[in-house]
């Protein structure tokens, strides 16, 4: 940047405000100069401009000076005349002239290396935010995110599954044996309640970390702002409020802040409408369900299946939004908006790690509190025998209180292909938090119970096994990265055998759907995507929009989920899929 040299003279600095304003200023200035009490305190031109700007402090001071009231009256006449001529406040007219002068001055004296030439960010934006290319590029970015979350995180997912199912279960049983509790209800609680429940969810930590890593990379690189910009335009094109997309983008991480983010919308109707649509955005908590079911039923296309769920969520939100916008929420014009798009930059390790860790910590906190508590409640309900068969924590799971209660709602899900008490029970508990669906499935399919025979190993062998399998998972993760581009470095290496839970889910869904397990699994994924939001979201909706809209969301989403899942399953049957 260089500044040109100039010779300064002693001429007082004056901005030319244009003929009409200058006329008013000079006439008012003359009246002020005729009032000595004022000129003793203020320069006349400066005071004239301040009075025309309706500066509160200066006006109050002038009012207290002899002759000041008369000057204020004259000033107000000039203000009224100018306002009626220009239809704008005089302070705006003055500021406008000042900004024009500043801009002219800056352009005259500053030579910035090609100020008018687009920067690198501008050049990238010409493609990334392009009217036609913006949306496909956003979809491509999302696709890469889901390839990362499913393919790249898979080795660590397998590693944690093996660690929880092997060494940690071994240690838990050994500790219970040490205190002679291995045959008590405590053993059942630890293994069937905590390990099957919380452990079943914790295995998905690598998946969520991958999602949070991808979100952090997109945010820190500056792309996330562009995504909001691009999608805003798309929302407007279909008639929705553009600003709604920011809360909806936030909803991809978690629906709770998405509900609070609706506060940025000015109009209450727009806030409620966006608040009703936000839960259709697939939050991170639903990802474990998708990944589990996609791996069980669509192992060759798991990324595509997960990606399809996210797209379906957006599509349903747009369709429901259009219906509501043209019925219940028929109002409000869209308002203009200006956004600051930060320049692109290379994401820093510190920022990315911090963002990823904060979110993962939030998930782990949920696992240690609400998921643990729900797993214990589900275990307790599964431990209570109904009909006098067995004893507490020593009953056939099919005769437990949990299975009987879940069975009551099973008929509702029969037309959707997953009318079993296991699936029904998982969906009921999923109201607490969506990831609980997975933990409950782990419990109800009773994999790895206390009776499970584990290979006897020493502590040292377990530690060695954890470390070596971690190293192998790390190598496999690096080998998985090219999968994002469709390059398979694994070749003919044997794929890992499905886990016990995966096999149990497949068998269960095949049975409940008359042999159409994959179709029922897809309907289940769709149902989890769309059905009643979790407890925390419902509480946020009540707080922000009131009980009436909360119930609209709770019941409405259940009905929508049922209808779409019904269409998927029954449509698939008709088409012979």
């Amino acid at each position, binding site marked *: 940047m260089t500044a040109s040299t100039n010779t300064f003279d002693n001429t007082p600095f004056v901005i030319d405000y244009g003929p009409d304003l200058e006329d008013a200023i000079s006439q008012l200035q003359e009246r002020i100069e005729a009032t000595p009490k004022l000129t003793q305190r203020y320069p006349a031109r400066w005071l004239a401009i301040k009075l025309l700007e309706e500066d509160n402090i200066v006006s109050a001071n002038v009012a207290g000076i002899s002759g000041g009231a008369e000057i204020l009256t004259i000033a107000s006449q000039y203000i009224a005349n100018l306002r009626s001529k220009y239809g704008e406040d005089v302070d*705006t007219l003055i*500021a*406008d002239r000042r*900004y024009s002068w*500043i*801009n002219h001055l800056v*352009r005259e004296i*500053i030579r910035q290396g090609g*100020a*008018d030439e*687009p*920067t690198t*960010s*501008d050049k990238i*934006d010409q493609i990334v*935010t392009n009217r036609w290319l913006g949306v496909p590029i956003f979809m491509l970015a999302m696709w890469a995110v889901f390839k990362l979350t499913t393919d790249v995180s898979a080795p660590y997912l397998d590693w944690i599954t093996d660690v929880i199912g092997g060494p940690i279960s071994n240690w838990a049983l050994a500790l219970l044996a040490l205190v002679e509790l291995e045959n008590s209800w405590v053993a059942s609680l630890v293994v069937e309640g905590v390990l099957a429940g919380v452990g079943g969810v914790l295995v998905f930590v690598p998946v969520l970390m991958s999602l949070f890593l991808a979100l952090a990379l997109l*945010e820190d690189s500056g792309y*996330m*702002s562009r995504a*909001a*910009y691009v999608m*805003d*335009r798309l929302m*407007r094109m279909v008639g929705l409020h*553009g*600003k709604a997309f*920011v809360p909806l*983008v*936030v909803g991809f*991480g*978690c629906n*709770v*802040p998405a509900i*609070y*983010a609706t*506060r*940025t919308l*000015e*109009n209450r109707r727009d806030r409620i409408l966006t608040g009703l649509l936000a839960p259709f955005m697939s939050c991170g908590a639903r990802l474990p369900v998708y990944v589990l079911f996609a791996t069980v039923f669509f192992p060759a296309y798991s990324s595509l299946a997960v990606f399809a769920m996210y797209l379906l969520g957006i599509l349903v939100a747009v369709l429901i939004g259009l219906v509501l916008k043209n019925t219940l929420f028929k109002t*409000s*014009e869209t*308002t*203009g*908006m*200006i*956004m*600051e*798009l930060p320049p692109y930059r290379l994401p820093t390790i510190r920022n990315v790690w*911090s*963002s990823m860790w*904060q*979110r993962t*910590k*939030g*998930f782990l*906190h*949920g696992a240690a509190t609400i998921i643990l508590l729900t797993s214990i409640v589900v275990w307790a309900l599964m431990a209570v025998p109904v009909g006098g068969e067995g004893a507490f924590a020593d009953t056939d799971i099919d005769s437990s209180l949990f299975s009987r209660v879940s069975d009551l709602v099973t008929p509702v899900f029969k037309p959707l292909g997953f009318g079993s008490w296991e699936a029904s029970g998982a969906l009921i508990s999923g109201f607490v938090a969506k990831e609980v669906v997975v933990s409950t499935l782990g419990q109800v399919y009773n994999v790895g119970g206390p009776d499970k025979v584990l290979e006897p190993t020493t502590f040292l062998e377990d530690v060695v096994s954890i470390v070596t399998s971690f190293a192998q998972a790390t190598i496999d993760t690096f080998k998985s990265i090219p999968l994002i581009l469709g390059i398979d470095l694994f070749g003919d290496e044997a794929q890992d055998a499905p886990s016990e839970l995966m096999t149990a889910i497949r068998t269960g869904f095949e049975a409940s759907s008359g042999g159409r397990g994959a179709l029922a699994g897809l309907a289940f994924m769709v149902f989890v995507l769309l059905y009643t939001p979790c407890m*925390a979201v419902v509480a*946020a909706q009540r*707080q922000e929009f009131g009980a009436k809209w909360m119930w609209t969301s709770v019941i409405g989403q259940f009905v929508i989920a049922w209808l779409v899942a019904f269409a998927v399953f029954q449509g698939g049957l008709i088409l012979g899929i």
Partner: protein
Amino acid sequence: MLQQVLHEIETANGPVYYGELARKLGVERSALDGMIQFWVQKGRLRRNVPPGHTDSTICGGSCRGSCPGPNSCPFVMKTPQAYSIRIQE
């Protein structure tokens, strides 16, 4: 110039961003920022920040919408800085 800024935001078919508008009007970005702040002070533009938030960071979970900082909130997300035309009540 000020009027032009407001007019461009009002009449754009979709959001506009700083760089695009600055180039279109031939103004420096810093000057444009000053003009935006002027309209915010005049009440014609509104900064899209939820009540209880000091910047464009959105929090969730137990924070119930007010953001004490990333260490206290399970979910924090930065959203783009944006200003929109204030609807006249």
